[in-house]
């Protein structure tokens, strides 16, 4: 399943998740449920800043795997697993365990390997054709 499909499934599955973004290991956005690019980048920046700030709270300097910030206006969740990060905004007073489970399921659903492109019968692969 690609990132867009996994995010679509997440929003269908979880009524509490309002918007979510997925970042790769370098912190670049690889998928979002928001059409607005500025809103996507803002959530991605918040996710990066939260993990940095949370990391500085720990003396051991271990990698942050999960940050949950529950406020009166809503909550922000950041989960990191397998080199990917997912950040989501939820409605106020979410069921934290359930949201974390849904976000983890979304990350697991994303395939690591890109799907091989279908070639027409008789068509040579590009690399071989260039030689």
């Amino acid at each position, binding site marked *: 399943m690609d990132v867009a499909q996994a995010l679509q499934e997440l929003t269908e599955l979880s009524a509490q998740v309002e918007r979510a973004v997925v970042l790769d290991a370098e912190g670049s956005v690889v998928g979002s449920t928001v059409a607005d690019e500025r809103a996507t980048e*803002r959530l991605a920046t*918040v996710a990066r*800043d*939260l993990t940095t700030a949370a990391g500085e709270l720990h003396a051991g300097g271990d990698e*942050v*795997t999960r*940050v949950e910030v*529950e406020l009166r*206006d809503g909550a*922000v969740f950041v989960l990191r697993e397998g080199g990917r990060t997912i950040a989501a905004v939820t409605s106020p007073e979410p069921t934290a365990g359930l949201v974390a489970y849904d976000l983890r399921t979304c990350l697991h659903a994303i395939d690591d390997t890109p799907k091989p492109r279908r070639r027409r019968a008789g068509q040579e692969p590009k690399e071989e054709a260039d030689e």
Partner: protein
Amino acid sequence: MRRLLRLVLLAALTVWAWRFLAARRATHERVGVSYADGSSLVLEPGSTGFERLAAVARGALSP
């Protein structure tokens, strides 16, 4: 003896009512962080860490 019992009962009721009202008024704001080594921490409003992370998170909550 009876007066003392009444006094204790009244004090207990007052404490219960105060705690009940305080719990209702309390906001459920909190920050939870987990790390790769299995450790985790919970920050309550008023702590430096909470205020810092809450300020960052508000950036995503504002419309």
